[in-house]
């Protein structure tokens, strides 16, 4: 048994900043992360790249390189740190201490904490196009992880398909690293300028730095010579054992291209597993087409003393995540009566201002790069649940057979019952059922998530750490 004032789950921008801030306030902090190195997805392998592959910082870009100062701040904060540790349960009674249950180093350990901060970030929205289960089809984030963590990149021909800032960033990183990209299939629907216009003034006023960055990335792509297909729809991956070609419609014309790797990206959504596990209230975000936990302006969920900061609470990006992490840590320090917070209130006001400014650009981004509306309309053979090979047609059939929501569909079909526990199919099943029943996603709901939320061996269960 380990005791701490604050347990933080996730070592990305929100978790690291919260850990450092809470330490400054005088709290004891334990940060638990499933990756072997701190930095989260955005700053994956930043420490190793700084020492072993300094050249990579040049093509990964300044926003990536900025992560080094962040991991240094975290490392020197005095916070406890368990890397490569799997949180598989969180017991969070409304009153009293919370228990984080962690498999670490072959043993299950229980962490008693007065407050918990969930900083588990985002995941890329699953993109269930025909052929998406073929080896060689993965997310843009997956390829970016391979590049950051291992210096690996896919052989030609490499095709990128999707919509949103990460696609532009990765295309620019490939360009800077000399990695050939055969084509970019831009799935952004026509009319972006009209959609974005109403949100432009606010974005310009407070988020001009972000807009400038986006503009730079678009210019890199435009000058790269990479063929860009616009308004792409009806994307399909084809191949027998592995992806070999992609087919799609662009400008009303069918196109077929060779591809040995197809990378998909349709934005990011909160990773819902922990907040769902503890049963906190969630709400559907219409603009981002995903659920997020309902948070107070302190960052607290509907479960007392459990907070969320960063993209896990709603998508805002790395800088917003850091501000949210700082706010949550200062609020927790206040709640726990931490000793060392001479200017806590001023700090919170400042952090809130920063967060507001960082979020100002979000409505424009949501309008420019709308999440795919076709997911809710899916039907036919396309696999929705990858683990149990459940098709869109089957999910629609379950609706006809009387399944009102995902949990009944799960009982009918086993969708969401495989190892990923619905991470890959949850949003899609909710959207299809909402469409089939002509209801709102909030009325349809989401899978109930139960522990263990990560694979645990009997050995790890048996080797439970004892009391102090």
């Amino acid at each position: 048994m380990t005791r701490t004032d604050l347990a933080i789950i996730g070592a990305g921008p929100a978790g690291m900043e919260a850990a450092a801030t809470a330490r400054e306030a005088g709290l004891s902090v334990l940060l638990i992360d499933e990756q072997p190195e701190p930095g989260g997805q955005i700053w994956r392998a930043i420490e190793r790249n700084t020492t072993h592959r300094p050249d990579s910082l040049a093509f990964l870009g300044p926003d990536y390189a900025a992560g080094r100062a962040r991991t240094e701040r975290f490392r020197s904060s005095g916070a406890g740190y368990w890397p490569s540790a799997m949180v598989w349960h969180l017991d969070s009674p409304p009153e009293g201490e919370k228990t984080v249950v962690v498999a670490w180093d072959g043993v299950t350990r229980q962490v008693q904490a007065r407050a918990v901060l969930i900083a588990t970030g985002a995941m890329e929205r699953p993109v269930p196009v025909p052929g998406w289960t073929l080896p060689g089809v993965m997310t843009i984030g997956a390829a970016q992880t391979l590049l950051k963590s291992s210096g690996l990149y896919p052989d030609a021909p490499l095709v990128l398909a999707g919509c949103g800032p990460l696609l532009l960033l990765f295309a620019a990183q490939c360009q800077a690293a000399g990695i050939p990209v055969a084509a970019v299939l831009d799935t952004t629907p026509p009319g972006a300028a009209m959609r974005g216009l109403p949100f432009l003034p606010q974005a310009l006023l407070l988020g001009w730095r972000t807009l400038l960055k986006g503009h730079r990335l678009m210019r890199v792509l435009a000058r790269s010579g990479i063929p860009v297909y616009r308004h792409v729809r009806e994307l399909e991956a084809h191949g027998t054992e592995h992806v070999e070609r992609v087919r799609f419609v662009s400008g009303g014309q069918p196109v077929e291209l060779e591809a040995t790797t197809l990378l998909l990206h349709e934005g990011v959504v909160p990773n819902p597993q922990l907040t769902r596990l503890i049963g906190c209230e969630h709400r559907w975000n219409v603009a981002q087409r995903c659920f997020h936990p309902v948070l107070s302006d302190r960052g607290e969920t509907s479960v007392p003393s459990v907070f969320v900061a960063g993209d896990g609470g709603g998508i805002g990006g790395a800088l917003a995540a850091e501000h949210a992490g700082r706010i949550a840590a200062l609020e927790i320090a206040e709640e726990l009566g931490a000793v060392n917070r001479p200017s806590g209130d001023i700090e919170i006001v400042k952090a809130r201002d920063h967060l507001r400014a960082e979020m100002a650009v979000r409505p424009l981004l949501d309008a420019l790069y709308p999440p795919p509306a076709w997911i809710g309309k899916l039907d036919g053979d396309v696999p929705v649940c990858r683990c149990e090979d459940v098709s869109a047609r089957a999910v629609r059939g379950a609706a006809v057979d009387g399944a009102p929501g995902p949990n009944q569909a799960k009982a009918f079909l086993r969708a969401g019952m495989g190892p990923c526990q619905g991470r890959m199919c949850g949003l899609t099943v909710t959207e299809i059922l909402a469409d089939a029943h002509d209801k709102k996603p909030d009325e349809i709901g989401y899978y109930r998530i139960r522990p263990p939320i990560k694979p645990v061996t009997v050995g790890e269960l048996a080797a439970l750490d004892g009391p102090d």
Partner: protein
Amino acid sequence: MYRRLPDPRTRAVRFTFEGATLSAQDGDSVAAALLAAGIGHSRTTPKSGAARAPYCMMGVCFECLIEIDGIPNRQGCLVTVRDGMDVRRQLGAPGLPGDAVGEGSE
């Protein structure tokens, strides 16, 4: 299928996949090491037996589930490859003796 940017400062790691010795680099995840070695698929699904390879590389898709040193259902993208590791493809649903219980939520 994959190429690697020049990396003279990183140590090589040797592990086995299905009994054959493969080379990776220090710091690679098991999933990355297999992709780098040109391994097309790392598991098959329990229901249709379809071949699968990593999709997300960040611990959410569970397509990289693999047997490492006799323990099935390990997330290959979250385990760092080590010298002498014995890695095997996970075919269908792993049997009980391997003792993984973390599957499903109902």
